[in-house]
């Protein structure tokens, strides 16, 4: 079995199984936890929980001016690499084929050159995010191994994918196999690290919105 056969077969199957198991485990255990009852009185004129949840989610999409320029940079940079990752994952024809194999849906892909540009911008944005994390004293203080590892495991597929498309550093089949193995590593790490925010962001923002709405906190 070649490295590519291993990556395409057993590695991705195992990674996908861990991903599904981990995500379901974490979501169900989190949602099923016994909730502490809120004994505070509901503010008069407080919005409904649904409305407060939506408001909370939308308002947190932008940092208030009072938070300063540093946060603005982090936020814009965050949008850049999230958008870049979305373009790469959902716009590259080869990736669409993977998703088609999994979910049966298909849509037109973008030219390879567009994806390459998106990947380079995404990579630069990810590097900027890391530089900010290590240069800011506050960020450095609150950063854990989880943060750095999650950064590395997110960056690796972008870098290896770019190398594979550009045929740089090794033979294409080796680069493709390494790229797939980095994806497998990402899927395995996903439920247990910071990447889980892809699911949890909806819960945390909604819960914060509901809590603020009930108390009348302006957000």
């Amino acid at each position, binding site marked *: 079995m070649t490295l590519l056969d291993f990556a395409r*077969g057993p590695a991705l199957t195992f990674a996908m199984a861990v991903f599904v*198991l981990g995500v*379901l485990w974490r979501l169900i255990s989190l949602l099923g936890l016994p909730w502490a009852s809120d004994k505070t009185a509901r503010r008069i004129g407080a919005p409904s929980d649904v409305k407060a949840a939506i408001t909370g989610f939308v308002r947190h999409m932008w940092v208030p001016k009072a938070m300063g320029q540093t946060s603005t940079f982090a936020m814009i940079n965050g949008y850049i690499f999230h958008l870049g990752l979305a373009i790469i994952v959902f716009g590259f024809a080869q990736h669409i084929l993977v998703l088609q194999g999994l979910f049966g849906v298909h849509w037109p*892909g973008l030219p*390879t050159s567009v994806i390459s540009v998106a990947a380079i911008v995404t990579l630069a944005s990810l590097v900027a995010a890391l530089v900010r994390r290590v240069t800011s004293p506050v960020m450095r203080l609150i950063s854990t191994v989880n943060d750095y590892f999650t950064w590395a495991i997110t960056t690796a597929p972008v870098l290896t994918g770019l190398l594979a498309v550009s*045929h740089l550093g090794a033979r294409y089949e080796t680069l493709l196999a390494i790229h797939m193995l980095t994806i497998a590593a990402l899927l395995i790490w996903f439920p247990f690290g910071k990447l889980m925010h892809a699911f949890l962001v909806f819960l945390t923002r909604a819960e914060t919105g509901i809590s603020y709405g009930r108390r009348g906190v302006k957000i």
Partner: protein
Amino acid sequence: MSETGTIGEALIAQGISRRSLLKYTGYLASILALPPMASRAMADALASAKRQSVIWLSFQECTGCTESLTRSFNPTIEDMIFNLISLDYQETLMASAGTAAEGAMQAARTANKGKYVLVVDGSVSTGAGGVYSTNAGKSNLETLKEVAADAMAVLSVGTCAAFGGIPMAKPNPTGAVPVSEIITDKPVINISGCPPIPEAIAGTVAYIITFGKLPDLDHLNRPKAFFGDSIHDRCYRRPFYDKGQFAKSFDDEGARNGWCLYEVGCKGPVTYNACATLKWNGGVSFPIQSGHGCLGCSEPGFWDRGGFYKPLSAAVMGNREIIGGAAVAGVAAGAASVALARKRRAAALAAQAAASAAVVTQEKTP
């Protein structure tokens, strides 16, 4: 088939001029990516060289490799390969049979001990002592070991001999293995392909005769001159790949426009061969030009790679049971975590209530 004398003498006897020989060596030098002057050196070396004794053994194969080679011999340059070599034993092509044929092989082995080239097409059966494929009362395994012992080098022609091929496909009932797994003490050159390109066979033999050494080989022991580039890198449809224009089926608009066949399973990006440059049938066409994706037939394991029509980037997962099982396990683990958390909370609340009750009782006690 065995003849003595130099290649030059044989060519003159057949009325082939030096000019024709130079044209042929020029062609060989160019496909081997050698410098222009190598053509003259090859012509001189070939003219004065003795015809190379070749013993060709066919094992677990379909004769497609021999068919490919013989079909290419007509009418001009390729037929010269017969003038370069003395094909002393080849079961499909030789006129003699039985004891006479085996005797010819023995005679060639004795006369050219340590100097002949052994060509093998087909994989070697090792299951049950190799009984699945026998010839002249001997298993292929036994014959290979015996004949290879006195050979100068071994040429594994075709993917079966080079990497096991179709006979090695799961579940491999005959215990098929490639030649290189049996012969480990001699140089083994792999000229893979199902079938291999005739020019790759001819070019490699000519190189060995001319320079008296093996050509540069890649990590799979294939001549780099023919297996140095991927089909994808030399494919005329590559610009469509770069533009993201793919045929979705074999009869849609994309297919009619000649777009890239990646999405219908082309394995060109991970296949190394000269099909896109040398092409087939005298340079007429090759599979991709004919509208079908590359199967990757010159690569190890191409037969067990999860389907010829499955795109390369698509994972060969297919095991829905594993993913489904993981989902069930995830739900069960989540439910167990919830139950445990609720149980702990109930226990904590009960302990708290008990402690409060104890305090009240203590306060009421005079």
